[in-house]
């Protein structure tokens, strides 16, 4: 890694806690490169995370970092952003963290279109607790709590976020790390609620149980199953079966929550002067 990106890491906290083959380090690397591209002011940026393997990433980043409770990162982040809108806020969550226990906060942060950049480390499983199925585990996968394989249907996280009101939605993988950096950078530049799903590998708790091989094999799986949005246009539904889209999936403009709140402050002050 280039030295200029390294300044965004608390190198004294390394090595990290993640297992060999885990993709979280690649996602962390993509985030750090995005910080560099953005020229993030370390003293004016907050990283909030939930609970899970992925959420430990916050502790390795040299910003004001807040490692919260399972599922609640977006709610803490909402408090920070609303209190001090001038602060740039990134939120790191796992798939279970963001879509199961924190699903309600996810849809409401999206609905408010509050200016947060959420990066979701989707390893298709509950990593920290040892491999239980999550709302993003593909149907038919095995997990410690799905010994006969899961019968539940997964969310499509970008679809969910878009339907809930997010104004920037993207997806990439740890294989497509450069694209991931680009998307995180674009999401952070976008004013409003941005969600970037990062597909990452958990060979120990997901791959092994589902015969997907090691970390390298899982990266290759990502390479083979991800289809960039531009290329998907030319593909038939038949060709897209079992594949997933990556790239910028949705982008629109809508009033941002803290901007609206500042307008509300002025309105309330005008009304109170009149009273």
């Amino acid at each position, binding site marked *: 890694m280039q030295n200029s990106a390294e300044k965004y890491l608390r190198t004294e906290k390394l090595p990290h806690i993640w297992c060999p083959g885990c993709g979280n380090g690649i996602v962390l690397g993509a985030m750090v490169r995005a910080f560099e591209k953005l020229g993030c002011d370390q003293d004016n940026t907050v990283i909030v995370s939930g609970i899970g393997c992925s959420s430990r990433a916050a*502790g390795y980043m040299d910003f004001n970092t*807040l490692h919260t409770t399972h599922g609640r990162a977006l709610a803490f982040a909402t408090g920070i952003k609303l209190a001090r809108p001038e602060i740039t806020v990134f939120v790191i969550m796992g798939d279970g963290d963001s879509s199961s226990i924190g699903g309600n906060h996810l849809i409401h942060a999206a609905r408010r279109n509050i200016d947060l950049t959420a990066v979701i480390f989707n390893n298709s499983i509950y990593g920290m607790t040892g491999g239980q199925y999550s709302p993003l585990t593909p149907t038919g996968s095995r997990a410690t709590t799905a010994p006969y394989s899961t019968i539940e249907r997964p969310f499509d996280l970008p679809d969910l976020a878009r339907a809930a009101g997010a104004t920037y939605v993207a997806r990439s993988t740890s294989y497509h790390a450069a694209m991931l950096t680009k998307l995180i950078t674009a999401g952070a530049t976008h004013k409003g609620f941005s969600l970037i799903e990062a597909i990452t590998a958990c060979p120990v708790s997901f791959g092994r149980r589902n015969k997907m091989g090691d970390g390298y094999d899982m990266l290759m799986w990502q390479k083979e199953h991800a289809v960039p949005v531009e290329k998907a246009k030319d593909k038939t539904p038949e060709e897209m079966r079992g594949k997933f889209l990556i790239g910028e999936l949705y982008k629109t403009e809508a009033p941002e929550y803290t901007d609206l709140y500042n307008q509300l402050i002025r309105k309330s002050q005008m009304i109170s002067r009149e009273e």
Partner: protein
Amino acid sequence: MAETAALARLMQGNEAIAEGALAAGARFFAGYPITPSTEIAEILAKKLPVLGGKFIQMEDEISSMAAVIGASLAGLKSLTATSGPGFSLKQENLGFAIMTEIPCVVVNVQRCGPSTGIPTATAQGDVMQARWGTHGDHPVIALTPASVQESYTLTVQAFNLSERFRTPVILLSEEVIGHCRERVVLPDISELKIIDRKKPPAGLARYNPYEPGADGVPPMANFCDGYRYHVTGLTHDESGGPTTDAEKAERLIKRLNNKVMDHLDEITMTESWMTEDAEIIVIAYGATSRSAKRAVKMAREVGIKAGLFRLITIWPFPVKEVTALCRQAHTIIFPELNLGQLIGEVERAARNETNVVGVNRVTGEMITPDEILNKIKSQVKVEQHAE
């Protein structure tokens, strides 16, 4: 005097809490509607933006508690207000605020439980939940107003204690106080004693966010005010980083508790009424203390040496004060609007040396002065009758 009189108003308890919060300097509220606390949110929704503050109605009580902690970490004095079911939902993040030492105020206007119970009826059923509702060994500061006036002053006090000790403070009101309208005299804000969190000096080569001062309280830098640091609910060392080191874990948990227990003189608030020569002492808190006062007065009128000791701070429990009373009186009467919760603490303080008798009710109505008086009378020793 004329000036103060101008500030006398008829006010609801919940309104007094909202006013007290603003006076204390609160500029952030996050909450979720629930009877009988909702007026606090409604009033602050109106008043906070006028002052440049922020109000947000969150998607539930869990996120409300989270947002309040986030806002406080960003530097705004923050509060949330709720009742029974909502107080249950706040517990996990309340523990997070205790562990990470982020000041904030949590108002619980108690209602009849368990579960949805009787939402519009009063109770004192959450006193043990306030103490032990969140998991693990932790300190709690909880204050119980007995009037609308006190709803105001104790809200200010709750913020002060919370900033002083870097810990959430629970204001345990009750439906009957929250919805009661009484005359209050609001002090001039400039006369109020307001405490703000102690900050670290600027320009430190290294800021350790959990390195305590001599009083056990670490100076607190707000996020993005110059120092970069990590905050986690994991057991952490003084640098803020997670640790599983046994010694460091013990040091943290003991410090969290001791920073409160070593300063009881700043936290414990009680009030005595006619206790000097009392042989039967009624100990009460919150709205029940008002019935108790009336009962003591009636007892005195018939020649019974009764007195009232009112707990304003219920957590930490005023053990020293209550133990002293237990030595003095032959009987302690402890009315509370539950089946007997805080009485366990009184019994502990009495150490089996004094007769401790409860008066309880779970009907959603207040305990009447007569009920307490009857209990006082039933405990009068025969010799005293003969006098």
